[in-house]
């Protein structure tokens, strides 16, 4: 995947698309967009940095997984086998990008907190009692040659999940939800090893960088335009991330 930071306007439509496609619970952001500020007033600059899972070629999470639930497919996608994960969260501490999310709540409670009370009778009349109100049927399919359960979110309590590059869509030849939703086409998806794929053509001749490249993780997400965030960068605005209202 290529992400053009010159194009990104920080609208977070990709974040929303991801949540709808993958039914992620509240406070879980498989795709996340940093809105960053650098420098000191008045010499400040603002930048945006979309952060999906980096789908590393040398993924630290796969290396540390004690059961092989986290695995690296031949096509480069790094996935979690929800039937095998034991919830030790080693992948989460090993990953330097902070892309892993643990299902702290049970699936039926995962969506029902913060502002919305899903058992509210008025709301229940609209949702028909379904939690989440809309559930993507594609997520129940099994993926890959081995037919493992790797798509979607919050299927079970107590397992770790993260961005799957929308494996349920990729297997059908479609682009991930964030890519198709981006209104300014800042995200480009495809096979990096195929020189004629859209992503390879897009990257040709452009300055690029990868996030935390010095760690040797070799991400498959390549950023063009812009620069990596400096250690001085700080977030200026955040969505509901569950901080401070965890027990709501």
């Amino acid at each position, binding site marked *: 995947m290529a992400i053009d930071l010159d194009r990104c306007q920080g609208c977070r439509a990709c974040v929303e698309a991801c949540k709808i496609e993958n039914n992620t619970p509240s*406070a*879980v*952001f498989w795709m*996340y967009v*940093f809105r*960053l500020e650098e420098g000191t007033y008045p010499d400040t600059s603002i930048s945006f940095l979309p*952060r999906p899972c980096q789908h590393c070629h040398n993924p*630290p999470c796969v*290396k*540390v*997984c*004690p*059961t*092989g*639930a986290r695995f690296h497919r031949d096509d480069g996608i790094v996935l979690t086998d929800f039937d*095998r*994960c*034991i*919830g*030790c*969260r*080693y992948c*989460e*501490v*090993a*990953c*330097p*990008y*902070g*892309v*892993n*999310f*643990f*299902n*702290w*709540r*049970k699936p039926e*409670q995962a969506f029902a907190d913060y502002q919305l009370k899903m058992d509210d009778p008025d709301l229940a009349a609209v949702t028909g009692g379904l939690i989440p109100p809309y559930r993507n049927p594609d997520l129940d399919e099994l993926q890959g040659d081995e037919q493992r359960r790797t798509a979607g979110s919050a299927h*079970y*309590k*107590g*397992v*770790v999940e993260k961005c799957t590059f929308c494996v349920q869509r990729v297997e059908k030849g479609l682009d991930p939800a964030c890519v198709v939703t981006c209104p300014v086409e800042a995200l480009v998806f495809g096979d990096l090893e195929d020189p004629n794929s859209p992503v390879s053509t897009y990257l040709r001749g452009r300055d690029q960088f990868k*996030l*935390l490249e010095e*760690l*040797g*993780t070799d991400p498959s997400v390549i950023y063009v335009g812009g620069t990596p*965030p400096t*250690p*001085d*960068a*700080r*977030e200026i605005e*955040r969505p509901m*991330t*569950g*901080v401070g209202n*965890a*027990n709501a």
Partner: protein
Amino acid sequence: MPTRDMRQPLPMGVGSLTRGWAAVLALGVVGTVVGIVGYAVERTQGMVATGMRDLGTMQGATWGIYIALVVYFVGVSFAGITVAALIRLFRLDKLRGVARMAEVLTVVALILGALAIIVDLGQPVRGVINLFRYARPQSPFFGTFSLVISGYLFASLVYLYLTARRDAAVLARRPSRLQGFFRLWAAGYEDTPEQRARDRRVTFWLALAILPLLVIAHSSLGFVFGLQVGRPGWFGTLQAPAFVVLAGVSGVGHIIVLAAIVRKALGLERRIGRDAFGWLGLFLLGLLATYLYFVVVEVLTIIYQPGVIEQRLSEALLSGTYAWLFWGSVATLVVPFLILAWMALTRTWRVGWLVTSGILVNLGAIGKRYLIVVPSQTHGQLLPYGVGSYTPSLVELAVTVGLFSLGAVLITLFMKVFPIVDLETEASTELEEVSA
């Protein structure tokens, strides 16, 4: 049928219930129940009941006090089997009195370590199955789960069983309610010279095999952290050796406390003498000196380490959010070091001061384990997620209390079904009487 008069009380208070013992047990059971209730809440509500949260956008720590406890308990188990093996390999006869309780401590601490892992898992049942079914030796956790919890626990159990068979054979000859149990434990062992020689040979080789296993096992725990490049403060060569040494510090401290309690409760001032305590004190002093040297190296390295995020983490440790815990832990290691050094120089080993040192080093060890696990998660984000925080919830504290209480319960129960101090001297005279 033996008449009532022929029934002698079993040695070391085995089989006879006293009020003090019952009080300790009751306290332990209450604590254990608190832990079970805590865990039940965690299971029914989901792990949202803990204070742990996701790294990154949730700004939490996904490993908390449970993982610190896993490391701590496995560390405590170190000393038991080391001391027991050293006693056997180097024939330290004056320490015979603490060998059995050291072995029991190892087994109990390993059980607690395994339980601490289980309570931390999101899918505990699946964990028990999949950790073996899909085991990956490439993961540093393989060392923790398979090497430590299975291999090491099994080796320790066999060691405890073999070294205690002689006592079981002796006790099986006495009529008591536990006679059948002792006969089962002895399993045909009758303490003939050939059997004795064979058991001595087997335990010698087992002790020799356990020592390297122990270094490997504790190092593997250090590698869980020391091999992670993506988390500032973790990657380093010192992790594995520091884990081994701090494991020894906390474990020997525990043995000293346990030995003092048993000595007082059973009136064994003669069996567990001052010289035994002196040896343990010296051993602890040596380990503590090594570990404090590691602390100095660690502090100097983190002050000068490159990288902005790494320096931010160092600040949090040395003068920021975690400074109270860091310097508090260092203090609870320095003070016992001074006490022990003073006693070693003046050659006066006071049990009271030794016990104080034993308790202090364990507090320090828990603090240091916590500091390895948590700050690198809350203050070590390489992407601009901001600084996080973690406070253990009531549920986690309840489970912590439960684990420690369960340990106390297990040791207390063991004391009433088997002599916690081996019967060496009394046993040999008794056997001669029987055979005469």
